[in-house]
């Protein structure tokens, strides 16, 4: 069972980062964003496009050839572009909807449409078969009894660092405080002179950069494919719900729990030969949590009634 712990931590860091981004956006905008997975995939695919060597046939339409930039530059560019992408979504789609008083459910259905649309644009433009970044293969080594490749250890450390950074950002910076203020009560925040449109835009950009980063991490750990965002989205929902939707710390915690649980369940005896069912366990846990403690572990009750 312990050999799965490494995989669990890796899946956990992906889900935790994705959950923080989703939860932040939900907290500030009240949008249950089903297109979140597609922003994650956006980051991964853009980084793949930037970093793959120009002569590889990566993309479906052969008139585009990858750029072949070095990997770290690609990652930074891709995170920035994910932020721009999220900002554009807010400015071109969600802000007009908000100004026209669209209800939450209407917006939710719109995000589902957006998710289907984007995902299949990726299918048309990016390779349908799972593709890896051009990074050399590494052997697993033993870290305190947990088997991981050196690169995945780096990924874990960077992932943790980013989460600490997000925590500090939300707690101590002016913008972070303003985000939390809008999250708790947008009316009171406006009265205190916070420009809520600006904060929502910042949240979209920030959350999308985080999502894009999540996608790159997912791509490094596993691989890049057109529907990777949708595959991870449900687990991210599970992590968010477990930790408490709208809370950042809870989302991180819930994400890790879900990731570790999914991977550890592979080692269970009754799961023998049922590899697909591991995701079902996480989703079932989410439904049970909703049954016994719908606000999640760290959530407050007023968010769910």
């Amino acid at each position, binding site marked *: 069972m312990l050999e799965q712990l490494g995989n669990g931590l890796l899946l956990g860091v992906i889900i935790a980062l994705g959950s923080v981004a989703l939860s932040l956006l939900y907290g500030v905008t009240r949008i249950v964003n089903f297109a979140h997975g597609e922003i994650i995939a956006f980051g991964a695919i853009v980084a793949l496009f930037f970093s793959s060597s120009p002569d590889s046939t990566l993309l479906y339409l052969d008139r585009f050839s990858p750029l072949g930039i070095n990997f770290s530059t690609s990652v930074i560019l891709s995170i920035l572009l994910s932020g721009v992408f999220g900002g554009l979504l807010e400015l071109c789609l969600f802000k007009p909807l908000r100004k026209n008083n669209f209800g939450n459910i209407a917006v939710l259905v719109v995000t589902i449409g957006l998710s289907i649309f984007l995902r299949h644009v990726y299918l048309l433009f990016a390779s349908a078969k799972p593709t890896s970044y051009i990074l050399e293969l590494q052997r697993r080594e033993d870290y305190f009894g947990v088997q991981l490749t050196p690169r995945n250890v780096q990924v874990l450390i960077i992932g943790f660092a980013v989460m600490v950074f997000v925590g500090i950002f939300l707690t101590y910076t002016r913008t972070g405080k303003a985000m939390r203020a809008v999250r708790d009560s947008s009316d009171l925040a406006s009265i205190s002179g916070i420009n809520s449109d600006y904060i929502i835009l910042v949240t979209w950009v920030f959350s999308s950069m985080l999502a894009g980063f999540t996608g790159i991490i997912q791509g490094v750990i596993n691989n890049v494919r057109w529907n990777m965002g949708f595959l991870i989205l449900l687990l991210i929902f599970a992590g968010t719900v477990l930790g408490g939707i709208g809370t950042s710390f809870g989302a991180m915690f819930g994400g890790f729990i879900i990731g570790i649980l999914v991977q550890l369940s592979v080692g269970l005896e009754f799961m023998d030969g049922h590899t697909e069912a591991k995701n079902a366990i996480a989703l079932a846990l*989410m439904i049970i949590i909703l049954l016994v403690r*719908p606000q999640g572990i760290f959530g407050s009750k007023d968010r769910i009634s």
Partner: protein
Amino acid sequence: MKKYIIAFFLLVISFLYIFLSNETGGARVFVNLMTFAGIYGLAAIGINVHFGWTGLLNFGHAAFMGIGAYTTVLLIPHSLGREGVVISSGLPLPLAILIGILAAALLGLFLGLPTLRLRGDYLAIVTIAAAEIFRLLVRDFEDLTGGVYGIIQFSDSLQNSRPDFITRFGESYDISPSQFWVGLLTWISIIVVLLILSRLKKSPWGRALRAVREDEDAVRALGKNAVLLKLQSFMLGAAIGGLSGIFLVFNYGTVQASTFVPVLTFYVWAALILGGVGSLAGPALGAVIFWVIIAGTDSISRFLFESPDGQQLAGVRFVIVGLLIMFFMIFRPSGILGKKEELLLDVK
């Protein structure tokens, strides 16, 4: 009245498009399209009971369709795909269908109990997760469901009841008689279901449901059990979904885990939004128009790519589906036949 005229013209244009764009075999294409439209329309009628009548966001309709289909198919003579078991005896088909529908309603009860107390958007997440759980379990428990190889050779139970004149009619117009029979039964079911629903909608129960959609607290204040009403609506819609799933697998002639993927639900939602949330016949109309649009997107694919493969065809189809859902939700949330006042667009 105006919207019915628009709907009529849209239908006429759609049918003309089918026959004009297929010089040979137009009838065959038409029957194929109408069969799928009927099945998706029936499924959309189920979601309409949830969303249009009661304001419940169900994004896991594929699970209800799937459990209905699997239950029915497993109860009649069938064989599991790829060297699986052959079971040559079983229940009579009508009884199996009835149990299938009940199974879907029971899944509705099982899912509804924990979640219907929660706010609307949670239900969306839970239902989509439940559909995924269902699909993963079906895929993994191969002994029972045939997994990815699925279940085959169950169609005879339905096709044996096909009257001779359908067979003769099919043969003389170059239509697949078995598909024609499935399509015919589907549309008969739609009419029956719509007749029942139109009675229900006008009944005190139907009015109470719409009251739940508008203001749950007010319903509670009047002494009605809002959660129970929602549960009943959830089970009713799930049962209709189960029936549509049964027709779906009889139309394919096989059923695999991949039949009930999440995108199936989104297709049905697109049909519902197109036709008009809350209106009775809207979902069925929406499904017809939706399938004509899907047929149209294939010619877009042929325009974009010289010889599109399955992946490109599916890609273009779903790009259009996503755009349709967004476009209608933003610019005409009431669809072709719906009423804007009848829509629940805000969370409660």
